[in-house]
């Protein structure tokens, strides 16, 4: 076999990346252009030019323009076009990225969010000018409440972690209103990193609860750790190992008996849409990740939105303002909530993202949402079944929307990181790795992939399993088709170079 064939798997239509389209190393923006160029066109001013010194103290005036690049429009276009070729994206690649729900982002969402009437509303326009927008937000609020099985929703938080923090603040306010000061927040050891970080952001102490070997919460450990100082348990269900913890109703009882609150991290809602509702299994409070469950694009890491749904007793503490429908049928903002925690974000929230989430929910409807959960769970179990002969499955099926597997490394010297990097050569984005158990891969195919794509992924994983046995070096040195080889991430952190400096 030739080297080239060994290094580059048969990627067929799944060509790894624009590296083949554009093999050259792109310039850094600051290497482009010439003094005096401008990539934008502005009209001449139609008012007199003021002498700045006449109205602003000289000490405060800029003595020169900001030292920004000067590049013509075509070269600006080429630059960003070239950069776009060096990204994996859901539109080109399969992303079996556990816990991240990288489903297809329907184009129609973008079209709706861009409609005149939505895209160019100013946040301080009078309510009379924005009735359609407020009606949309009110409908979304109602839909999310129904999906959660909880009576009220705030749309204000800007992302999932921001929703977690908001929810913890709401829970704290609730305890304080009862004259209690509870400082400990529990979370299973398999929790997302944002959970403990959100605890700290809210001034709470995080205590980890053990998971059993089967991935479920260890009830004995939970009972041992819950006491009068427990503010809440943050739980993800189905959890991060892809298992629905059927003890959830009992967990809720233990938590509630201690006067604490049960919080659900909604990251994995995709698996249960229309099947079961958090409010029905004892949850007091939860957040949604619209960029996971409701198909709003990840955008290279945002913008997200993290709406929070709460039970009746937490309602008074939600952020203000809240979108409401008035008695006369019109929509508006209500600031009258004296016990509110206040605001967590400017204005009203990630409105453009929420418009996309609304569009998605309206597209699918109750029937389509249930179909999402079914197909997401089917895809995950299908892939797991196809791989179980070559990869270790630490937890027994059936799985929810994602599952955990561990490559058989034997003495090959290959790590899960190498396996992940080798997938890049197959045009597949690496899965989540090394968490929540050592050496694992967390696979979440999502409901939108065809069986053909799933089969392509299975084939890739099987060929990598072969390579680990027969040709481990090719895995250890992957990727081979990306525009760069593995980067010196350790060196980059030891001596961080985070800003272009002209002398370089």
């Amino acid at each position, binding site marked *: 076999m030739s080297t080239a064939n060994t290094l580059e798997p048969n990627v067929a239509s799944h060509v790894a990346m624009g590296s083949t389209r554009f093999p050259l190393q*792109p310039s850094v923006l600051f290497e482009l252009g010439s003094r005096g160029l401008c990539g934008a066109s502005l009209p001449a001013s139609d008012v007199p030019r003021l002498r700045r010194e006449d109205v602003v103290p000289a000490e405060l005036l800029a003595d020169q323009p900001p030292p920004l690049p000067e590049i013509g429009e075509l070269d600006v276009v080429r630059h960003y076009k070239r950069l776009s070729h060096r990204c994996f994206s859901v539109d080109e690649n399969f992303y079996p990225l556990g816990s991240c729900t990288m489903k297809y982002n329907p184009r129609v969402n973008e079209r709706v969010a861009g409609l005149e009437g939505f895209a160019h509303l100013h946040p301080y326009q009078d309510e009379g000018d924005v009735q359609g*927008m407020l009606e949309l937000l009110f409908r979304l609020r109602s839909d999310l409440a129904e999906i959660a099985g909880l009576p009220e929703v705030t749309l204000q938080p800007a992302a999932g972690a921001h929703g977690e923090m908001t929810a913890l603040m709401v829970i704290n306010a609730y305890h304080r209103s009862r004259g209690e000061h509870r400082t400990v927040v529990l979370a299973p050891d398999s929790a997302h990193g944002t959970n403990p970080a*959100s605890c700290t952001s809210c001034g709470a102490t995080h205590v980890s609860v053990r998971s059993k070997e089967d991935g479920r919460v260890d009830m004995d450990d939970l009972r041992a750790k819950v006491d009068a100082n427990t503010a809440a348990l943050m739980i993800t269900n189905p959890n991060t190992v892809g298992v629905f913890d059927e003890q959830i109703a009992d967990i809720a009882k233990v938590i509630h008996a201690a006067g604490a609150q049960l919080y659900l991290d909604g990251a994995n809602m995709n698996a249960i849409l229309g099947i079961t509702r958090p409010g029905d299994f004892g949850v007091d409070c939860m957040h949604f990740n619209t960029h996971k469950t409701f198909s709003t694009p990840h955008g290279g890491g945002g913008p997200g939105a993290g709406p929070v749904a709460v039970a009746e007793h937490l309602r008074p503490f939600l952020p203000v303002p809240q979108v409401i429908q008035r008695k006369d049928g019109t929509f508006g903002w209500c600031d009258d909530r004296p016990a509110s925690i206040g605001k967590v974000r400017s204005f009203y929230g990630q409105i453009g993202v929420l418009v996309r989430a609304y569009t998605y929910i309206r597209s699918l409807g109750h029937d389509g949402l249930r179909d999402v959960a079914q197909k997401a769970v089917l895809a995950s179990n299908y892939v797991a079944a196809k791989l179980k002969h070559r990869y270790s499955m630490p937890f027994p099926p059936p799985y929810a929307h994602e599952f955990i597997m561990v490559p058989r490394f034997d003495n090959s010297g290959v790590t899960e990181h190498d396996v992940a990097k080798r997938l890049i050569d197959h045009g597949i984005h690496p899965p989540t790795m090394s968490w929540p158990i050592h050496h694992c891969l967390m696979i979440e195919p999502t409901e939108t992939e065809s069986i053909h794509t799933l089969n392509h992924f299975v084939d890739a994983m099987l060929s990598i399993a072969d390579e680990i046995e027969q040709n481990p070096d090719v895995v250890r040195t992957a990727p081979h088709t990306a525009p760069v080889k593995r980067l010196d991430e350790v060196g980059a952190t030891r001596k961080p170079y985070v800003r272009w400096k002209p002398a370089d």
Partner: protein
Amino acid sequence: MRFTQFTGDEVQEALGAVGVDSMESLFAPIPDSLRLKRDLNIPAGVSELELLRDAKSLADKNDDCSKLTCFLGAGAYDHFIPTVVDALAGQSEFLTAYTPYQAEASQGILQLFFEFQTLVCQLTGMDIANASMYEVASAAAEAVGMARTINGRRRALVAQTVHPDTRRVLQTYADSQDLEIVVLPDRDGVVDERALEGALDDSMAAVVLQSPNLFGCVERLDRIIDEVHAHGALAIVATDPIAGGVLKPPGAFDADIVVAEGQALGVPLQYGGPYLGLLAGREKYLRKMPGRLVGMSKDRDGRRGFCLVLQTREQHIKRERATSNICTNEGLLAVRAAVHTAAMGRCGISTVASQCFDKAHYAAAEIAKLDGFELRFAAPFFKEFVVRTTRDVTTVLGKCREAGILGGVALKRIDDRFDDCFLVAVTEKRTKGEMDALVAALKGA
């Protein structure tokens, strides 16, 4: 609409491969008692055509700034966005990419964030910047948390001239973090510098300022920051990222942390979000910064490449000991801001800033000539100013609205001390004709 792709036969094939006979078996772990035994009370799915009809009927109930002439500001501005911003930032390779944890598969977006960080430094006059926060208010709250980590103090002094949303968000964060917020009073539209010295002591972690401030006025950062530093506190300044075309950026006055609302850099108004928070600081605070940071590095063949750096500050590694809980940031908005700033460049940003400045001053002068209207403050301003009127503010703005003009933000909406005032913002997009129409509408009110 459905975006799933399994046919009925393929469902059977997949179930067969799993070794179960029904979809139901896959959900067996969910106890029957917890199941939803009915359909969600949400309308059934619709086709794309029906969906677009529904969306358009909602959109048509709104009157937006493409129909109306917008003089509204107070933190969100109707600036011109070059066509290339939508064209390039809308590319699905950026739109549908994940957070660039996998460097080899994400070089494009990583390089873009690295360049974004540099552009933010160039706009603010600072050493380092992160790859974005949610928006300016939570960025300010994170900055205060950062200051507290740096000097271990537990109070923050926040100027009354900082946008009330930012102040409210700071208060919300502070309430849950055992942090005390103290208000620094204002006088004539700017920080009361005489009150500053009395308010500062060695318990103050930071002083939060905004310039241009809520009222559009330019603060005396040259004097204030020196005073702040004299007491060992950090100076956190919220600014307008385009103001550097006319005014010295906060970095020039030795600010320690600069935050800004990046919306002015190519982000549509969108009824208040998503926007993006900029956060920049001094090099020495690099390891205390919240949020994602991208660095330039080399691959094993010595080629230039980019990767996330200092991830040990972040929640996915450090969990409860992270510098912040932030995970998702505003990646796609950072793309927009980067493309916008690159296309505008040195000349474009200066032109935008200059025209905002000249046009705002033209409009202010014309309005001040009217009977019953005057400028509320004498302090210098950038693109926004406060008008006081002897008439009823709601009526006056209602008259403007009848003429198709959003004449300003009634100040009592955001600061109840000023119920006879409104705030007028003028961007480079406004023409002399539009400003004259505003003046005419006010005159007839």
